[in-house]
C-alpha cells in the first residue's frame, strides 16, 4: 500500500452537488467536507434526502450528469482530484481502488447472469483474466465471504440466494480487486436483524484484514454505534456535526443530533411520550435561509434565521480543541453542556 503517512485516503473538500429539475435547482449537497484514512470507518448518518447517498455517488463518479452537476468542490483520492482527472484515470480508480456496496442486493445484481459470472466479470474486465480463471477466483471470493458450498453454488442465479447471501455476494464483488476504500450505502437496511448482525460482522472483519477505509452510509443509530470510528451527521446537504463515535453518543454538539438520539425509545421512558423533532426535513428546492435546521430547532434564535453557521471546531472547557469534533451550530457550547 502506498499511502503516505498523514495523508488521508479520501479527502472530500467543499463538495456541492445540484440537480436541475423542472421546478428549479435542488441543492442536494452543499459544501461537504470529510476525510477517511486507511483502516478507518466513517459513518455518514442522515435521513432520506440529507445528501448522504448523493455524496457517495459523486465520490464513485456514478451520478447521472445531467441532471446532476458538481459546481464546486474537490474529491481527493490519495491526493489526486478525481473530479478533474481524465475519464480513463478515473476508471482505473472506480472498482479497483474504491468499491461500493449497494442497499438492495437483488436489484443491484443482474437476474439473468449467474453470480459466478458476475463476480468473475471483475477479473475479466479489470485484470484480463480468462473465463476459467475468473470463475476459480469467483469461487475463492464466495468462500471468503462464507457462502456455504461455494463451488456448487457458483453457477446459481441471484434469485436462488437469500437476502443475506445476496448481500454477501455484493460484498465479495466489492472486495474482488482488493480496493483501498469501500463505500457501503445502507448495506443492511433491507436485511433482518439476525442477518444484519452476520453481515456487519463479516464486513468489519474483512475491513480489518485488508486494512481498508470504510464509509458506512446509514440512518440507523444502532449500527453506527456498533462499528464506526467517527461519524459525520448530515442534514439538508450539509454536515452538521462530526465527532468520534464515543463523544457523539455521550454528548452531541448539534441540536439535530441531540434530537435524533433523544427520539430513540429508551427503557426508562416507557409509557411516556417519545421525544420527537417537530416538523419535517426541508425541501431541497427551498432550503430555509440561515441554518437549515432552524425551523425545527428548539434553540433557534434570530441569528440562526440570518446566518448559516459554519462547521466550527469544538473546544473543551479547558480551552483544548477536541480532536475530530466540529459542529455547525451557533450554540454548540450550550448544546454540548445541556445534559
Amino acid at each position, binding site marked *: 500500500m502506498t499511502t503516505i503517512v498523514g495523508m488521508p485516503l479520501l479527502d472530500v473538500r467543499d463538495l456541492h452537488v445540484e440537480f436541475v429539475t423542472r421546478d428549479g435547482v435542488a441543492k442536494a449537497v452543499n459544501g461537504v467536507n470529510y476525510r477517511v484514512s486507511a483502516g478507518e470507518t466513517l459513518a455518514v448518518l442522515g435521513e432520506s434526502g440529507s445528501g448522504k447517498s448523493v455524496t457517495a455517488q459523486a465520490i464513485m463518479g456514478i451520478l447521472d450528469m445531467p441532471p446532476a452537476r458538481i459546481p464546486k468542490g474537490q474529491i481527493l483520492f490519495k491526493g489526486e482530484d478525481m473530479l478533474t482527472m481524465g475519464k480513463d484515470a478515473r476508471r482505473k480508480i472506480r472498482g479497483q481502488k474504491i468499491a461500493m456496496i449497494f442497499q438492495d442486493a437483488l436489484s443491484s445484481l443482474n437476474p439473468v447472469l449467474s453470480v459466478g459470472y458476475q463476480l468473475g466479470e471483475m477479473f475479466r474486465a479489470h485484470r484480463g483474466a480468462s473465463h476459467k480463471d475468473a470463475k476459480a477466483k469467483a469461487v475463492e471470493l464466495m468462500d471468503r465471504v462464507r457462502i456455504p458450498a461455494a463451488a456448487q453454488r457458483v453457477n446459481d442465479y441471484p434469485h436462488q440466494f437469500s437476502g443475506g447471501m445476496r448481500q454477501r455476494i455484493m460484498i465479495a464483488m466489492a472486495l474482488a480487486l482488493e480496493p483501498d476504500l469501500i463505500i457501503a450505502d445502507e448495506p443492511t437496511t433491507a436485511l433482518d436483524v439476525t442477518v444484519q448482525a452476520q453481515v456487519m*460482522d463479516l464486513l468489519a472483519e474483512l475491513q480489518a484484514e485488508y486494512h481498508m477505509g470504510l464509509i458506512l452510509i446509514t440512518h440507523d443509530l444502532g449500527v453506527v454505534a456498533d462499528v464506526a470510528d467517527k461519524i459525520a451527521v448530515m442534514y439538508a446537504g450539509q454536515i452538521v456535526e462530526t465527532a468520534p463515535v464515543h463523544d457523539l453518543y455521550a454528548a452531541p454538539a448539534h441540536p439535530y443530533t441531540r434530537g435524533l*438520539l433523544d427520539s430513540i425509545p429508551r427503557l426508562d421512558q416507557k409509557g411516556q411520550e417519545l421525544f420527537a423533532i*417537530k416538523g419535517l426535513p426541508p425541501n431541497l428546492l427551498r432550503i430555509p435561509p440561515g441554518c437549515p435546521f432552524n425551523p425545527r430547532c428548539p434553540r433557534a434564535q434570530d441569528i440562526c434565521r440570518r446566518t448559516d453557521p459554519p462547521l466550527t471546531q469544538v473546544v473543551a472547557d479547558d480551552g483544548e480543541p477536541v480532536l475530530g469534533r466540529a459542529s455547525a451550530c451557533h450554540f454548540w457550547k450550550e448544546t454540548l453542556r445541556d445534559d
Partner: protein
Amino acid sequence: MTTDGATALGAAQPEEAAFAQPVSCGEPILQVRDLVKHFPLTRGVLFKRQVGAVKAVDGVSFDLVKGETLGIVGESGCGKSTLAKVLMNLEPATAGSVKYKGEEISGLRGSALKAVRRNIQMVFQDPYTSLNPRMTVGDIIGEPYEIHPEVAPKGQRKTAVQDLLDVVGLNPEYINRYPHQFSGGQRQRIGIARGLALKPEVIICDEPVSALDVSVQAQVINLLEQLQGEFDLSYMFIAHDLSIVRHISDRVGVMYLGKMVELGSDAEIYDHATHPYTQALLSAVPVPDPTARERRDRIVLTGDVPSPANPPSGCRFRTRCWKAQDRCAVEEPLLARPAWLTGLAVHDSACHFAAEREIELSAAEREIELSAAEREIGPRAAEREVGPSTPEREIGPSTAERQENEGGETGTPQ
C-alpha cells in the same frame, strides 16, 4: 399521559403471572385459537394438483385484551403480516378460530363480515402505496362512510373527515389535497385517520413506521399512543423494530416460521426471554451506545430461516438453535409456561429447554432497569421485579459453563 390505561394494564401483568394465561384482567376483545393459514403450492396448468403448502401461519393462539397493545415481532417471512391479513379476513383462514367479543368471525361473509370489519381496522406499512393517488384526502378518509353510511350520514361526512384530520394533527383545510402533496409522515397520518373513521375498537398496525424517517417515526408513535388513550383502542402492533415495539407494547409475541414461540409482557420478553430465538433476536439488535460495543454478548445465528413450505420437524428453530437435542427434532414444543422457571421467566415459551440467558448487566444498566421499574410500577412492584431475578441469575455453575461454551460455538458463524 394518554397511555395511563395501557400502562396500568402492563404493570398489572407481573401480578397476574401466577394465574392461568392469558392475561386475566380485562375482557379479551379478540380471541385467536390455533389459527392456520396455508397457501397451496400447485403444479400443472389445466389440472392443478396441490403439491404442498406454504405454512405461513401454522397454529397461532393469543388473546388481545381491550385497551392493550400487543406487539408482534419476528423476521421477514415469519408470518406476522399474513396473521394480520387473516385476522382482518382479507385472507380466509385455513383452520382455527378468531373470536371478536366471543363471536366467531373467521369464515364470515357478506353483511355479517361487513359489520365486524367496522370494528377492526388496519393501518398499512407503506403510506406511499396504500393511498390512492387519484383520490383526494377527503375521499380517502371518507370512503369508509360509503360502505358504512350508518356511522356518518351524507350531510355530516365532510365535518367528520375534517374532525379526523384535526385529530391526527393535519390541517382540516387540506381536505381537497392529493396524497402526493404530503410527506411520508403526513401520509401515514392520513392512513391512521382512515383507520379511525369508523370508530373501531381494534386497530391492526402492520409496520406503521418502518417506511418513515427516524425523526418522523417518533411523531407517529406518539400519535398512536395518544389516540389509544383518547378512543380506548386496542392495538395489534406488528413491527420488526424491537425498541419501538417495546416502547409501545404492553405484551409482546415473538413469531418464527409461522409459530408463536414466546409471548409475555414487555419486561418478560425483553429482560427475561427464555426462548433461544428471542434471545438471539434481542442480542442481534444494534444498541445505540458505542460503550456497549466491547461488553456486548451477541448470539450470531448461523444460516437463514428455513422455507415455510418445508419447515423442520419438531421445533422449527432447531436447525439454527445451539441448544437443540434429539428431542427437538421429534417432539414439537408447545407454547406454555415452563414449570421449572421462577419469577418473570415464567411466561409462555415454546422451548423444551427454556431458560434465561445469563448476561452481566453493567451497573448503569441495572440502575436504569431499577429506576424504570420504580417509576412505572411503583416501589413495591420494583422490589418484586428485581427480587426473583437474583436467584434466576444464580442457576449454578453448570448452567453458566454450558452457556459459555455454547456462546463460543455460536460466536463463530458457520
